[in-house]
């Protein structure tokens, strides 16, 4: 995928027999995290028209891959238990093992897929010419 295409499509779905695999792109780690969150909500919901709720997340992990999994699973937990869908993701603080974020969105309008969890299976975040990319497998 060219860097132009990556900006247009920050993720692509990969073939996986039973579950859901995707490759997500970003110019840097914070953008990768935001794009991964967008991609996850993209496949499991229809976006609400306007944001009416805001949630705060504070996460620490042993490494960046674990932080990415925690980030996605925490968002999925909030989505499921609060019945909300998030469309805006602002990382106020970000280090490779820590983040503080504000996410906003609205009540879930339509759900298209249930994601049980983001997994660690073959999870890789690698540098590329255009920034970074991650391969993520979700249990669905």
């Amino acid at each position, binding site marked *: 995928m060219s860097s132009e295409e990556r900006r247009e499509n920050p993720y692509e779905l990969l073939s996986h027999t039973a579950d859901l695999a995707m490759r997500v792109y970003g110019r840097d780690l914070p953008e990768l995290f935001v794009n991964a969150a967008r991609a996850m909500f993209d496949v499991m919901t229809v976006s609400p028209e306007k944001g009416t709720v805001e949630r705060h997340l504070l996460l620490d992990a042993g490494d960046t891959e674990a932080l990415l999994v925690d980030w996605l699973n925490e968002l999925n937990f909030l989505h499921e238990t609060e019945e909300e869908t998030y469309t805006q993701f602002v990382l106020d603080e970000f280090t490779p093992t820590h983040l503080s974020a504000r996410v906003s969105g609205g009540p879930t309008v339509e*759900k298209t*897929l249930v994601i049980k969890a983001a997994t660690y299976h073959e999870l890789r975040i690698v540098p590329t010419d255009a920034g970074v990319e991650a391969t993520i497998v979700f*249990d669905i």
Partner: protein
Amino acid sequence: MATRADFVQVEPYAYEIAKTYRADMRVSARLYADEAILESASHDRSLEQLINTATLPGVVRYTLAMPDIHQGYGPPIGAVIPIDPRNGGVISPGATGYDINCGVRLLKSVLHAEEVRPFLGELVNALYANVPSGMGPGGEMHLSDEEMDAVLLEGARWVVRRHLGTLDDLEHIEEGGTLPDARAGAVSEAAKKRGSTQLGTLGSGNHFVEVGRIETIYHEEAARTFGLFPGQLVVWIHSGSRGLGHQVCTDYLRRYQGVITRFGIVLPDRELICAPFHSPEGQDYFAAMSAAANFAWANRQMLAERIRRTFATILAGKVSSHELRLLYDVAHNIVKRESYQIEGTLQELLIHRKGATRAFGPGQQAIPPVYRAIGQPVLVPGDMGRASYVLVGAQGAMEKTFGSACHGAGRAMSRHAALKEISGEVLQERLRWQGIFVRGSARGLAEETPEAYKDVDEMVEVVHQSGIALKVARTVPMGVIKG
């Protein structure tokens, strides 16, 4: 990547890759399959994932997979991993999976299915209306904190105590529907919150309720013992521990990330993360996993009651009996403590089943007395267009597969590919002309199209020919509701 050439045929339907294949393997890895299944499994990561399970600390004899093997995350789906918990042997949340105690139960009617066919459309519509399914948050029930803790400790027994079901039901569930090692305190508040409105709900994905008919009886004696006869109406239920189980697995995978280096465990795949069983972390997960398994048994008990009440509402006065009795309920994502002969000594092991069903043969004390002489019922659902099977556990399972058999047909096509293949509406019409009345979301139906699955007949034939579990009855679908 491992190929066919790396595997040696060790039985007519079993292939093994030696532990010398990779330096980190502790035991060999075995696949119960025929040539076509082995060839098919070598096209994706399934075999590599099976080999990875042979690296877990404490694994004994060989790690194995059933013929319905397909690519998962961590282990392949269809895996059975036997671990000696002594001397640092581990328990692995990732090798058990997110849907803890996802499983199947089969209800049997005394009716011939044809007696119900005139009311089938009405019945399936009512089931779709009465059994909460799909992607919504949950059912109408909201468990209080005290109720949730009681469900986690008591499982299906909690539901029966509320007069939703009978003692006869409890006698026909693996473990009586309650694992004794459960501890509610080992389950996080987040997991309890995620599950608090989901008791008695089907969920989405491959979960379903199927009204079916016994088409063929293969094993007269077992069929008599199980109370099955040709033409009989049966109901299949497939569901698990819902969001509660997903969160338990997520929580412990997260917690274990921080401790694995302390135990000096090196793994080929981070999703297989584990901890010594006899460590505080290992014991906590075992208690939480047991609690989630109990939640799943309570869930399937509630679902069965909703189905019974729907049968009563629609069929009372129209047929001779609307009673549905439980044949059996089996788990297929779970860790169990079971004893097997290892090098001439009876040894308690931790059997991790990820997409595999317990299949105890004759004489095992864990089987309900009524089935003990013949072996436990093994329930193997296929897809919604073809067939499903009732098998009986055989001695071969005790000797060769740590009391395990296959759990289904196994996916052949990704959900994404299935959506491109067919629309839910077209599938629904096609099945209607086959005499199968289906309700569900358009997307959910399309993802579960029969073509997305391998042929369950082939999987069951391998298990039957291997002497792991023997064919008793083949059922065909008449009506299905999907999430």
